């Protein structure tokens, strides 16, 4: 803990002891309030405060993508995001994708194509794929591989993940047509 004893080493430094701050997040379409300390990451807030354990902690350093969620519609890394900085934001996790018992098309496509083995990276893969499709930049399988490169799969299910995403993108285009 920081206290007055650090004053000498750092020169003219003043700070008050941190306290928990009440924040409001709209998570999977429900308003949630919680008291967080400044260093609570969005990932820890989801998993430890709200029991939304679908979002996974892999590397905890922004390298694996297992913690990917959608904030205000954009895919981000929740382990490198401080919850306090997202006060007032809209967060979608893997738990918020299905419509009742009806799976999201990406979820269904992952099942159809057996796009996982152990499943640990899957929530991040699925949220990332939704974010990628929203961005509208992926046209080819090569594009998908490049634009999904922030999500690592240790089981190596990549070919099936790409196939699943292609299926969902085709269904998406079909609906738009």
């Amino acid at each position, binding site marked *: 803990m*920081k206290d007055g004893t650090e004053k000498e080493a750092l020169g003219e430094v003043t*700070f008050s002891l941190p306290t928990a701050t009440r924040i409001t997040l709209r998570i999977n379409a429900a308003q949630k309030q919680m008291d967080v300390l400044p260093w609570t990451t969005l990932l820890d807030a989801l998993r430890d405060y709200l029991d939304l354990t679908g979002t996974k902690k892999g590397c905890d350093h*922004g390298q694996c993508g297992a913690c990917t969620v959608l904030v205000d519609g*954009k895919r981000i890394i929740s382990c490198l995001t401080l919850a*306090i900085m997202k006060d007032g934001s809209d967060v979608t996790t893997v738990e918020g994708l299905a419509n009742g018992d009806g799976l999201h098309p990406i979820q269904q496509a992952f099942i159809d194509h057996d796009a996982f083995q152990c499943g640990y990276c899957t929530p991040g893969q699925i949220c990332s794929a939704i*974010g990628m499709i929203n961005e509208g930049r992926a046209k080819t399988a090569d594009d998908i591989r490049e634009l999904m490169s922030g999500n690592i799969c240790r089981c190596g299910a990549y070919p099936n993940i790409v196939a699943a995403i292609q299926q969902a993108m085709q269904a998406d285009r079909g609906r738009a047509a």
Partner: protein
Amino acid sequence: MNSFSYTRAGDVAGAVSEVSGNRAAKFIAGGTNLIDLMKENVARPGRLVDITRLPLSRIEDTPDGGLRLGALVTNADTAYNEQVERRYPLLSRAILAGASPQLRNMATNGGNLLQRARCYYFYDTATPCNKREPGTGCSAIEGFNRMHAILGASEQCIAVHPSDMCIALAALEAVVRVTGRNGDRAIPFADFHRLPGETPDIDSNLGVDEIITSIDLPSKGFADHHAYLKVRDRKAYAFALVSVAAALEMSGDTIKEARLALGGVAHKPWRNTEAEGLLKGKHATRDSFQIVAEAFMRDAKGLSHNTFKIELAKRAIVRALKHAAQMETRP
């Protein structure tokens, strides 16, 4: 992560006053580098000043025909901005060569300039590092230094700047606009980052009580003849071993102006205007590109594990120039 206090800045002046005279305070925006460094105990700020709600999130024309990139625009929004894609495709390509889509959705333009070295010894608090703890020594010089500098290094530090975006900004000769307690400044990109010298702990010439407000691109975007070539251990989501931003202004196959900036080779984006000048008035040929590549690497010095980078950089320069001159199609 150590404990710290948090405040959200409401305006630029307020943000500056929060860090003025408080060395323990740091700005935070995207957080993609700082939070990681805090988790590794490399950065231990006592106070974070959240600047994400400051009004620095716009991309707009400048009066002199250039483009102003707000410091808080994300890397993704910059790379995919219609004006940037059309007028400065070199910048767009460089940004998209870096990090991952999720990180580019978070990381800001100002933060990209201020990201710290990826040297493994800098990250490893169990080893000496002059950048992390001045005066303790450099573990990389006699250590595993495959990713390290071949140009501009010092006895104190051989780390390289990890950015892709900054390599394009160096070639485009962007200007970094900052504001601080003593007013506004405009820093030419070449003067923004520092060589390690005797003070490798200081990465840039941004004052401790200054904040980046925008990065201004001059009107000249080299949209017709440009290339960003990044050579790395795997094809995606890896830092550069060597990267080259090449920008040419051509008349027929004669080069009127050439700009080259190299990444992965030095503590800052590496320019050599004397070597670039060798191309002025020359025809775009493999031989003339080879001469420039040799001139660029004349003072390069390899270490135990990275000597391969010298030849790699020469070949990357030639290939990037060939792409820029459209002598061969892009990969």
